[in-house]
């Protein structure tokens, strides 16, 4: 589905929360590299998609009613083979049905297991006065404890993106601290500009999280994404 189709379908269903698959589809269309994520509506489908994507894979529950996927036992990572995928599928269904009885569960999303990189968070929020604002920071524990992030008002240009990545306290970690792999910072800057362009051109988006983004010395990929739409009706 295209971005416009996903957004109008969500509107029709009176949803403001998009599924991870929808969010990644939209971000992908905006030119932002996301891990390949495909919906599987059955155990058999989960296996065939896993084989197509290639092991190891990640399975995540896909339901508009379950926003806390980990808390519900709806996430299984690093699944090496067919048996593991089948077992994970069943466990996710059992656990999530118990966690949220009556939830509309469309299946699981099957994703390639991205190799670990430097954890980055990017996001967007709509401020009542300043309008859409984009954020960049180091992900994981650093964002939670230190809130080491930078913001800019949309639209941003490449210079703004350069300022955003150089402004954070932990920028040394991007340069490959103590022999760690460095991050492809120009690629991250390009992603920020694309995120800004997308929200600038697309009304009705309230919040976006791209968390985590794994940054490598060559490129970066969005591993998990979330998009929240504005609750008021917006004409696309």
């Amino acid at each position, binding site marked *: 589905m295209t971005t416009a189709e996903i957004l109008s379908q969500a509107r029709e269903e009176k949803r403001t929360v998009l599924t991870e698959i929808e969010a990644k589809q939209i971000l992908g269309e905006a030119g932002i590299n996301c891990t390949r994520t495909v919906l599987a509506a059955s155990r058999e489908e989960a296996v065939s998609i896993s084989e197509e994507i290639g092991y190891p894979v990640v399975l995540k529950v896909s339901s508009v009613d379950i926003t806390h996927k980990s808390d519900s036992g709806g996430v299984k990572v690093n699944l090496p083979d067919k048996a593991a995928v089948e077992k994970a599928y069943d466990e996710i269904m059992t656990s999530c049905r118990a966690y949220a009885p009556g939830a509309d569960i469309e299946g699981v999303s099957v994703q390639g297991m991205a190799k670990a990189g430097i954890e980055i968070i990017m996001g*967007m929020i709509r401020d009542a*006065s300043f309008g859409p604002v984009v954020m960049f920071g180091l992900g994981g524990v650093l964002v939670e404890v230190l809130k080491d992030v930078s913001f800019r008002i949309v639209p941003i240009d490449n210079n703004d993106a350069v300022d955003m990545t150089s402004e954070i306290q932990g920028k040394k970690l991007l340069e490959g601290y103590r022999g760690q792999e460095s991050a492809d910072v120009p690629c991250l800057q390009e992603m920020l500009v694309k995120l800004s362009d997308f929200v600038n051109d697309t009304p009705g988006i309230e919040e976006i999280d791209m968390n985590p983004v794994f940054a490598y010395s060559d490129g970066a990929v969005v591993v998990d994404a979330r998009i929240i739409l504005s609750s008021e009706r917006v004409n696309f």
Partner: protein
Amino acid sequence: MMELFFKPKSVAVIGASGTPGKLGYVIVKNIVDSDFAGEVYPVNPKSDEILGYKVYRSVTEIPGEVDLVVTALPTPKLTVATMQECANKGVKAVIIESAGFAEMGGEGVSFQQQIVDIAKKNDIRVMGPNCSGIVSRNIVTSIYPMTKKVPNGNVVLIGQSGLLAAGMASDIVENESLAVNKVCSIGNKCDVNENDLLEYFGNEDEVEVISMYLETVTDGRNLTRIAKKVAAQKPVIFLSGGRTEAGAKAAMSHTGSIASNAKIVEAAVKQTGMIMADDFTELKDFAKVFSTQPLPKGNRIAVITLAGSVGVNVSDLCAGHGLELPKMTPETTEKLKDMFDTPVSNPVDLYFSVTKIGFTKTLENTFYDAFSDPNIDAAVIILAGFEYTQEAVQKKIIQKIVRDVDKPVVVCMIVGYNRYKNVIMDELGKDLPVFPSLISGVKALSKLCEYGIRQQKLSA
């Protein structure tokens, strides 16, 4: 449209009074005492003459056209009625100074809405309510009595609070401490807001520095757009109240839970190239530095002192504010070798030179040469309150050297005899930015350097 506020050909004061001390009197008196050369129409149903001007019963009775109306009426209800009369008269610009509107909540909100409705319907621009309007050479609508003429300077101050803006204006004009061009208080901003003024003053050539205090940002997206354009041409100093760390709203995303009003405002300031002030004194002090000093090409500072210990403290402060203290070139070092007991370093300690050739000659030679060094972009001059310092200030020796070298300086005064120190602060303070502490001077200079470097990049 904004021209009608700042360059009206005729002005009516509604709620004018003949009783000295009353607000309606002060406003008329301020207009009369300014250089305003157009028609003045006091309006009051119960008076015939105020300060020699014929008084009209209502705005509709005024025979000629009215460019600008200033109202200072006792109740919001009367103000709304007057607003309708202004619409009937065809007035296009109104300054509402009275309080009792949205800032009060309740009924006040609906009175303000009625004002906005009348304004929209009739294409009227409204400044206020709850403001003190404009202080300028051309026209003064403020409620503080002005004791001197407003200088035709190069600085505009924009504030929300009427009392504060008017009070600051009155102080600045009285003390001649800042070359203001205009002070505007926009109060509740029911129509005219910071964006209108920023855009207007951005295009006014005589305005070289804009200093702005906001309690709330009306339209941040537009502010970002306009400020980016204006700050590329002239410095915009910005102080924002109500900056909180609390999340902007109940957010569903991680991003939303981290985003706070303070962080977003800070981002906008960085993104646009505005200069963030942290209090009202800085709003004024930074404006002083930017309006009197040329822009530095870099952040390489000479610290000029007569006491080593002070120099050390300033060096530390400079480092903390992103300023560098480079060495002088070999040429300067050689030239000044007889003026120092050890080769000239930075901080430049003038003590030896003063004991050898006296204070004035030290300024004219030693200081001049060090400040002129090509490695130096700007200077922090630390003066002490002594008789010879006062003499140098009164003979304008320091001022002249600074002008000749044509690099920016800030002066810090921290010690000395009070009777000299106060004179030096006041007299030198009219020509150069003088600070009563080291940290305030260093911080102001760091802002100037930051802006100077940004401008270099923009023009590169």
